[in-house]
């Protein structure tokens, strides 16, 4: 199988994660998996026709859009790897500002004949092309990437992860009676109890499973890098109400108080999904 690895606007962390798979990576590379195009590893300058294209990063510039359309036309299967490709990712936080203003402030003149024109917003790739599989995560864990790719290469549908991170977290949910919420650095977390019932704003109850819950296991709150779980995928305006409800139930703080606390930090659950979606219709394609 001929494979392309494409980087659009991103941090390159998803391909790094793929390379962290150790022996599983060697296994996949020794099988029917030939990387023929990848500016990071291979010297080929033109995008070839392939069976599988792995795309990390979202669409920030006109050049990104042109490239992703070319890649789609030349690939049989297209996998959007990582939350930037699937939902816009961290870079989409830039959508709160006007890019033009941002550039005027930073660079006196930019020569657009040499640099690609910026788009008004950061978009996930599904706004421009059809995506066969979405694999969100910042970055997705190495084993998740390898397992999914193995299935795809052998012509099977990868295992889907539909539920929330809480199902993979060992912490016990015991409703508490707290008087306020806490920041991550404000106090040490109890190693056994659910982080939300200790007053931390953990997004595990909204976020798609499949990562193995490394962050809450380590005592760090889940910050939602796998994007919303299946039931919440199309009702993003309800994410907020849902979170308020969960936090209130587990901490014993009234909903109105929780709302007040959450309002102070507008980015709390948009950190990775502050983008504009179109054509993100196929739920069954999210791995």
């Amino acid at each position, binding site marked *: 199988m001929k494979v392309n690895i494409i*980087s659009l*606007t991103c*941090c*390159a*962390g998803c391909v*790094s*994660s793929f*390379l*962290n798979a*150790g022996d599983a*990576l*060697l296994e996949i*590379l*020794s099988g029917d998996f*030939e*990387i*023929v195009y990848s*500016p*990071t*590893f291979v*010297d*080929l*300058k033109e995008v070839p026709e392939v069976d599988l294209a792995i795309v990390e990063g979202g669409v*920030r*510039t006109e*050049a990104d859009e042109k490239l992703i359309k070319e890649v789609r036309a030349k690939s049989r299967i297209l996998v959007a790897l990582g939350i930037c490709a699937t939902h816009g*990712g*961290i*870079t989409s*936080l*830039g959508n709160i*500002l006007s*890019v033009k203003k*941002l*550039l005027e*402030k*930073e*660079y*006196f*003149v930019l*020569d657009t*004949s*040499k*640099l*690609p024109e*910026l788009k008004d917003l950061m978009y996930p790739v599904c706004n421009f092309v059809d995506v066969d599989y979405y694999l969100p995560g910042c*970055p997705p864990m*190495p084993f998740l990437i390898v397992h999914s790719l193995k299935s795809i290469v052998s012509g099977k549908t990868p295992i889907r992860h539909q539920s929330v991170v809480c199902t993979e977290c060992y912490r016990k949910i015991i409703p508490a009676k707290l008087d306020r919420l806490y*920041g*991550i*650095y404000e106090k*040490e977390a109890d190693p056994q109890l659910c982080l939300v019932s200790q007053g931390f704003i953990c997004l595990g109850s909204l976020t798609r499973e499949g990562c193995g819950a*490394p*962050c809450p296991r*380590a*005592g*760090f709150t889940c910050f939602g890098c796998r994007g919303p779980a299946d039931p919440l995928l199309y009702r993003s305006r309800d994410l907020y109400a849902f979170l308020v409800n969960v936090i209130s139930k587990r901490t014993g703080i009234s909903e109105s108080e929780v709302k007040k606390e959450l309002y102070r*930090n507008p*980015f709390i659950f948009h*950190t990775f999904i502050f983008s504009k979606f179109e054509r993100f219709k196929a739920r069954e394609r999210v791995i």
Partner: protein
Amino acid sequence: MSYKKEITISPTTRIEGHGKVTIVLDAFGNVSDAHFYATEIRGFDYFLKEMEAERLPFIISRICGVCSTAHVIASVKAIEGVYGTEITETARKLRELLLMAQIISNHSLVFFFLILPDFWFSLEEESSKRNIFQIMREKPEIGKKAIALRTFGTRILDAVGKREVHVVSVIPGGLINPLKEREREELLKMSENACAITREALELGKELFEKNWADFRKAGDCRTYYMALTKDSAIEFYDSKIRIINLEGETMSEFAAQDYMEHIEEKSYEWTFAKFAYLKALGWPKGIVQVGPTARMNVNKRATTELANKELEEFKRRFGSPAYATLLFDYARLIDLMYACERARELLEDEGLTRTDTRVKVKPKGGRGIGVVEAPRGTLAHEYVLTRSGHLKNMRLIIPTQVNNAAINVNVKDAAMEFIHYGEIKPGLLNRIEMVIRAYDPCIKCATRRVNEDLRVEITNSEGELIRTL
């Protein structure tokens, strides 16, 4: 008679991030200018304004998935600078171990996956074959060793940082989780093998280097100032003073991290999204300075670990100090790697590493703080100004690739001038240019976090018409 006037290489390959090179020819067909530029931009400096301080480290980590650990640690150190927090010795050791792991996973990737194909294959080899995957097909052991070495790095990141990319356990005040004894023993066992692989990589690197040295010298040098962290003239990554040396190798200045921003100025050009950083005292362009592996070798006189110190001495004997040849970055990177493996083993041998006092309570307040570390590509600095309510008021990041940006451009132009005379392009231009860029291992992701970068080579005439893209 008309000459080709602009040459473009796009995208530049085997480099992290999207880059592009343009070479401009004058009316006689000689090189008048050459640029290496970034065509990517993301805008971190803007959208992080007013962000809560506690969310900064893990968001800023997303600037770069390749050197994320260095970013997290610099970020946390900057916040601790504002708060006036003193972390425990255990936390300091664990953070240093994380930085070593970052160097190991990055440098093993750069050496085996990006650089090695240049030395492994002859210049005549088809470009579609000049890559690690072809090497792995021809000699599977190389691939196995590369992956084993990288896995040592990622296992440390996983055990101590709790995620391999974008670590989460490092927070202001220390680390959330102590290291378990079982994990320490497992990692210590792995470190032996890692040191052995690195020794082999060094031998292989030196052998290939020796063979190509004549060509390498021709690839040019760029005589500039050098800057790196130093602890009593020994290689250091986590803490300590910053030293700048002049063209003769004498110390021009040495200062604490808090004063870093007073020594560095930035400049932007209309043709690239990546800014240029230079020494304020000398101005532009006299103050062009380089950071990274060669800088670490030039600035420091010794390494605290045995084998790395021996290699460093040999390096200095052979190439002088300061050593200028650009492609020595590739050699120096292997000495870095040796040091990182030995230092990681040394840290892991210490049973005190598993002490549970990894965290102190922080007292949030407003003010200004700077965090400086040696990232894989050189000195990395984060400066934050926080409000009293704990929100980000201002941020300034000086990224290694921004510092090296000027030297990279000078090198690209030199290479272009060597290969292009009166409109005649000698074969090997593309490869040479990419090799000098690759030597710096530039991370366009980091340099262009502000908005999105791409690397390409274009040839235009002095009127700006595009002639050819390579």
